[in-house]
């Protein structure tokens, strides 16, 4: 099903055949609904129940006018493949292989080819949450940090800094990993570790 959705949305957004894309079906669909509506208004043609149409040559050539390309690095394994991300109006609309990246040379595995889904997955957490009487509840960042901070300070006061363990990450930037280790040092404990241990 997922595969058929990719094909369908690629067709809807009029991306030329043979070009390697993975795109967010929702975003692509939305932008073309807008274009369809504008075209309908200009030409005075009433909108039909079919909300999409075939793209014209100009749109085929550049469906995201004014978009920018961002060179970035895949977040899955340590090969460090390049990704060329195309951003349009602040939205990551497409990703392309990085054909001249010196390590990946245009290669992508099935994970890297779907990197865009890391941002667009509907499964992403949307708000800070806590459990209240066993039920998940949205809270504000303010409330979350206040409650977590107060609890941490209370535990530190009562049991000392070694009562906290910090599981850091091999999935964050080096700068952030450095801050995780620095955080433990300033908190006053060596109880910190990350995935490299295992």
């Amino acid at each position, binding site marked *: 099903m997922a*595969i058929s959705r990719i094909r369908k949305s690629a067709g809807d957004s009029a991306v030329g055949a043979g070009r390697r894309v993975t795109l967010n079906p929702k975003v692509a669909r939305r932008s073309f609904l807008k274009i369809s509506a504008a075209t309908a208004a200009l030409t005075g043609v009433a909108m039909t129940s079919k909300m999409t149409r075939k793209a014209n040559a100009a749109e085929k050539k550049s469906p995201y006018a004014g978009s920018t390309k961002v060179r970035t690095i895949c977040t899955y394994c340590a090969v460090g493949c390049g990704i060329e991300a195309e951003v349009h109006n602040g939205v990551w609309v497409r990703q392309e292989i990085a054909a001249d990246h010196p390590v990946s040379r245009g290669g992508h595995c099935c994970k890297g080819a779907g990197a865009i889904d*890391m941002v667009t997955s509907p499964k992403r957490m949307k708000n800070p949450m806590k459990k209240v009487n066993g039920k998940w509840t949205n809270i504000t960042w303010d409330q979350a940090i206040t409650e977590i901070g107060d609890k*941490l300070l209370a535990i530190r006061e009562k049991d000392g800094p070694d009562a906290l363990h910090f599981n850091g990450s*091999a*999935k964050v930037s080096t700068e952030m990993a450095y801050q995780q280790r620095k*955080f433990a040092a300033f*908190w006053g*404990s060596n109880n910190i570790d*990350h995935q490299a241990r295992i």
Partner: protein
Amino acid sequence: MTNSLNDMRHAKSLIFIGSNAPEAHPISMQHILHAKEKNNAPIIVVDPRRTKLAAKATDFVRIRPGTDAAFMLGLINVITTNGWEDKEFIRTRVSGYEELLAVTKDYTPEAVEEITGISAEQTRHVAKVLAENRPTSLTWCMGGTQHSIGSSITRTFCLLQLVLGNMGKSGGGTNIFRGHDNVQGATDMCVLADNLPAYYGLAEGSWKHWCRVWDVDYEWIKSRFPKPELMQLPGFSLARWYEGVLGEEKLYQDTPLKAMIQWGCGANSNSQYNRVVQAYNKLELLVVVDPFPTMAAAACDTDNIYLLPSASQYETSGSVTSTSRQIQWRHKVVDPVHNSKDDYQIMELLVNKLGFADKFYKNIKQVPEDLTRELGRGALTIGYNGQTPERIKKHMENWHTFDIDSLQAIGGPCDGDYYGMPWPCWTDEHPGTPILYDISKPVAKGGLPFRNRFGNEKTYDSSGRTENQLAAKGVCNPGSEVEGGYSEFAEIVPGTNWKTDLSQKTLKVAIARGMAPFGNARARCVVWNFPDQVPIHREPLHSPRPDLIAKYPTYKDKQKHYRLDTRFESEQNPELVKEFPYVITTGRMVEHMGAGAETRSNQYLAELQPEMYAEINPRLGNNLGFRDGDMVWIESPEGSKIKVKAFFTERVDEKTIFLPYHFAGVLMGESLIDKYPEGHAPYVVGECGNVVTNYGYDIITQIQATKDGLCKVSKA
């Protein structure tokens, strides 16, 4: 990796042990297959399982899990018996060689066959292939490390390469493929219980060094700790932190663990995962910082849990270090989506709330670039100082100017640099070090000798022989002022050495003299600070070969191992195999990553691999009376069990069961899918393979032994 993925293109033969690159590092395969096709390089794959990589091998060596050290020592035995060792390399750049031979003489191909199950003929054949096709690139992954003797096994890999003279050479090297995208960078920054950033350790001098970098008073940092001695005591490791919560074991700190921050770490990659779940429920506070809820959200039954939505790494920026030690800038693609915040913002909120922001951010105005600068200023041991944010970004902009074979820029703004300035990159003009320990190039151009880290002379316990630990006369990088071995640099700036001189004058002076700041020494075959000074085979804690336990017993139990005791001898029960007759081992699939929180929430990947399974040999399944596709129970000696689908395949032999470890959301037969926050459960849930991986930890690193436990299987 001592070399790089691209450099593997120059290998004349390749050996992989416990590495399955097509699944775990797919894009590395283009370089590996280039060597195979272009150089006619044989590929030897050593694995208990006939993997996708084995399908590309010229020789597949099926090994009993946990016996890799014996096989390597056997290869060294054959090589040295036949005089195929690199005598000149050993004479000039290796120490403790005689002491190594005293151990390897017992690992004849016949003895190795008895331990490993590999025929004596195949051991002889592999040794010959390696001897005749140099240089060899040697790769290992978790299959080599996740054993109770993991640190010995990995040393035998290095010893094989030393004996063959394959170190410091293009096409050679020990090329460990790292797992996660930035596990190299995070390790280098020592998000670790036993080190400060850049492997400085926890000694008083190390703390003082980093306090100077942070520009904070050492006495203040000291005052943050309950006792000064706790500053130098390694903390709980990721492998066993949950025991610190459960309180069933003796702890080496005054309090049990009561709070946990789990930041970008899906914990179902822990062995005995059901014990982790018990720990979740005993914590007073569990904070999960992640773009996805992770298994913790479903597994924790109490109200003491908070989920903080962090942005993905495409919604923030910073540097990442690849397995080839290359530093790349991961540019931000879009702003954080929904109501998520990026890691730096969340850290700032927390640090502000906890009240030490003024000291924490003293030198940090611009995030993340000022952090790159600060960590570089301190991380001199591994040369993270030459890779300024400006240079890293310049490499990204010009990545097309780098040559695929040498990784060196040909012209353009980065002319002469190696891509990503692989560490060590000693100064902001240094090109990076593409191959470690390569004495064919000047240090200023990316060459290096072996590091002088353990003194200049040593008398070995086993032989009583005294040996100079510095490289032989005449062996050095081109242009070196000292023609031969030399000690590490110190006292260029009084009171400092090359690791602690924040002015970096020492580094510059060393390089100007054509020398390596860390000296020019020999690589050691004898590691006198390890329990096995020369590595030997020891049976896994849960061995399927009780007859071998007497000859190859494990270690004595280890006290004060991080912050608790670890059982070795008292855990090695020869009777266990009677009730738990099959070896259990784990690994990856290409469609999922790590604990799977991200990939099982990706609609495309979820469709490609929607179900947890166990690989079982058809003969074993038929003998036990279940069929391909039946549900089976797999039970561990620790009393935990999982219910999974049997997948009949001859990838595994009749005594071994393989589990992918990426699944979560089902615990011991019970689906937890309704316990995720509504709308955030992953598309795919499944039993965590790590519920049934056994007790067992390496004696040095405390890495968990997930690759050689025991289990039993029955129809569900």
